[in-house]
């Protein structure tokens, strides 16, 4: 163990300077994108009035029996497969017992010793190079039901807690990683990659505000001592983290807290049971919670109301055949197919599958990946942000934007004019040609342009002399005048034409 810990490369910039190695493992709960709950036909739609999506099964009423949702199982297998997990040929469900008012049955149907998948991995790379690529092992992925929601409103002075059981029985996939992460930054980036993968595969919407993705983080420190031994601090599980940014903050806080505590107490792993601490986001601290129950305290036993599930090779390939491209594969395909940089491919893919779809349509029409990528990353992203609109409902279609970009390439508009036109296209939903016409922007004819340039050259003997004397940059003085006479002229064309006229003089 000591050797393994000591040989861990400290690749992260943040760990290089620290007198310890941070060791992080994650437990992620993800709600699967099904219409109904895991064991009954109640709807999983978010936001319904409390206790209007329940039935005898999810209320845990006597005599009711659960039946497994096939779609939930397929989605979970699809995700596990994309996480390079081994899919078990035989899997079963178990009861995990604990008492809490939002768990009406007194047990949760989960998976204990025979989860449907195990031994996976997911690589995270940082396109900005802040840390070296990190492959994070996945211990297991299993399928279980969610609990309900308890509401404690201390402000009303009400002595009761209120319980909403709409969530009870919603299908969750639990993903448990190996303790392979080495910095809070890596943990956040890895979670982003996991979320991206699950959203691309349409396994979950991963909406943290609606509770579709929840993270618990396990962290401790490996501290090299002067005698060569590595001290390991007690593992802490951090709960109640509501965003990936909070995960990073909570882990940063917890690492320095554990370092301080170690310097005071020299307490090492095994000296106390695993501690659970809750993240208090406004205060920016973790606080101790009840000590975690040992797994034997959950009194797991096989769920007699559900029969086991077996998965043959044929069924497995059928379940994963509809699987889309993973973000990692998509990045490398975009890079090679459209000759864009790894960084650009990363930015595009991180914006989601619909954004990439738009990019690829644009790149296809333009036959130019680089130009399409630039427009997507600068102008389209800016417009989406300014108008807080999703690419799916973006008013300008790829064909329309391609027409505008084509006119920029042909020299009809310069880039800044094209940006004005694009803003207007987004606002009004009209085509580039229509917007240009309504803004009085028209392609200036060759004859008109020529007579304008002749006039400019004739009226500016000083500039002409300067240019003839070798100072070509003096021609810039002509451009301002040209814009005043006709705002639609393309400054690039004016410059080129005037220089030709002057040289011919």
């Amino acid at each position, binding site marked *: 163990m000591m050797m393994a810990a000591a040989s861990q490369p400290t690749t992260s910039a943040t760990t290089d300077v620290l007198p310890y190695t941070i060791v992080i493992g994650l437990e992620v*709960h993800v709600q699967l994108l*099904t*219409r*109904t709950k895991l064991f*009954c*036909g*109640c*709807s999983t739609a978010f936001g319904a009035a*409390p*206790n*209007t*999506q*329940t*039935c005898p099964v999810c*209320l845990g*009423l006597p005599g009711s029996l659960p*039946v*497994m*949702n*096939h*779609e939930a199982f397929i989605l979970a297998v699809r995700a596990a497969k994309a996480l390079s997990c081994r899919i078990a040929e*035989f899997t*079963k469900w178990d009861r995990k*017992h*604990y*008492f*809490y*008012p939002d*768990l009406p049955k007194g047990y*949760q149907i989960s998976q204990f010793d*025979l989860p449907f998948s195990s031994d996976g991995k997911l690589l995270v790379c940082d396109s900005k190079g802040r840390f070296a690529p990190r492959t994070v092992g996945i211990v297991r992925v299993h399928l*279980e039901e*969610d*609990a309900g929601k*308890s*509401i*404690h409103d*201390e402000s009303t002075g*009400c*002595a*009761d*807690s*209120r*319980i*909403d*059981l709409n969530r009870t029985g919603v299908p969750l996939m*639990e993903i448990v990683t190996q303790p392979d992460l080495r910095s809070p930054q890596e943990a956040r980036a890895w979670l982003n990659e996991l979320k991206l993968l699950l959203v691309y595969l349409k396994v979950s919407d991963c909406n943290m505000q609606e509770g579709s993705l*929840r993270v618990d983080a396990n962290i401790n420190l490996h501290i090299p001592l002067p005698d060569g031994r590595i001290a390991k601090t007690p593992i802490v599980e951090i*709960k109640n983290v509501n965003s990936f940014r909070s995960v990073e903050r909570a882990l940063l806080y917890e690492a320095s807290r554990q370092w301080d505590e170690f310097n005071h107490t020299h307490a090492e792993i095994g000296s106390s049971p695993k501690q659970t601490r809750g993240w208090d986001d406004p205060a920016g601290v973790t606080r101790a*919670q009840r000590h975690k*129950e040992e797994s034997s*305290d959950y*009194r797991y036993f*096989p769920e*007699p109301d*559900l*029969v*086991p*599930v*077996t998965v043959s090779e044929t069924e497995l390939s059928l379940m994963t055949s509809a699987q889309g491209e993973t973000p990692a594969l998509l990045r490398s395909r975009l890079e090679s197919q459209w000759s864009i940089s790894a960084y650009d491919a990363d930015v595009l893919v991180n914006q989601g599958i619909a954004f990439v779809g738009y990019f690829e349509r644009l790149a296809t029409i333009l036959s130019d990946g680089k130009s399409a990528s630039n427009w997507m990353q600068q102008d389209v992203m800016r417009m989406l942000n300014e108008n807080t609109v999703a690419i799916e409902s973006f008013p300008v279609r790829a064909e329309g934007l391609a027409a505008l970009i084509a006119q920029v390439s042909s020299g009809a508009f310069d880039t800044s004019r094209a940006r004005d036109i694009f803003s207007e296209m987004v606002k009004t939903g009209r085509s580039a040609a229509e917007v240009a016409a309504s803004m009085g922007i028209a392609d200036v004819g060759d004859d008109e342009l020529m007579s304008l340039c002749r006039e400019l050259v004739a009226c500016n003997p000083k500039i002409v002399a300067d240019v003839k004397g070798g100072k070509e940059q003096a021609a810039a003085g002509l451009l301002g005048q040209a814009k005043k006479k006709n705002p639609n002229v393309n400054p690039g064309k004016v410059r080129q034409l005037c220089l030709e006229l002057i040289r011919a003089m």
Partner: protein
Amino acid sequence: MAITRSDVAKVASLARLELSNVELDTMTRDLQGIVGFISSLDELDTSGVEPLAHPLGTQNVFREDIPTDSLSLSEALQSAPRHDGKYFLVPAVLGETGSA
């Protein structure tokens, strides 16, 4: 396998059962008797026998992901000892969350 008084006390506390000293003694004796009876099975050689996950031979029982009617709010709440017409009411539980 011997069942001790503290085993029984621990299981009782996990099951949120309050047992008197007399009940603890009775339970320990009874459980010891039950476990002793079952343990005669230990005499069988079960090496090479697959552990049984379920007594039925059936496997792969699924339903389609199609919504069915839920109970009405009043039906859902009607068996609860206390409710406010919208929520189930329970004595205050503060600061801790259940484990999922």
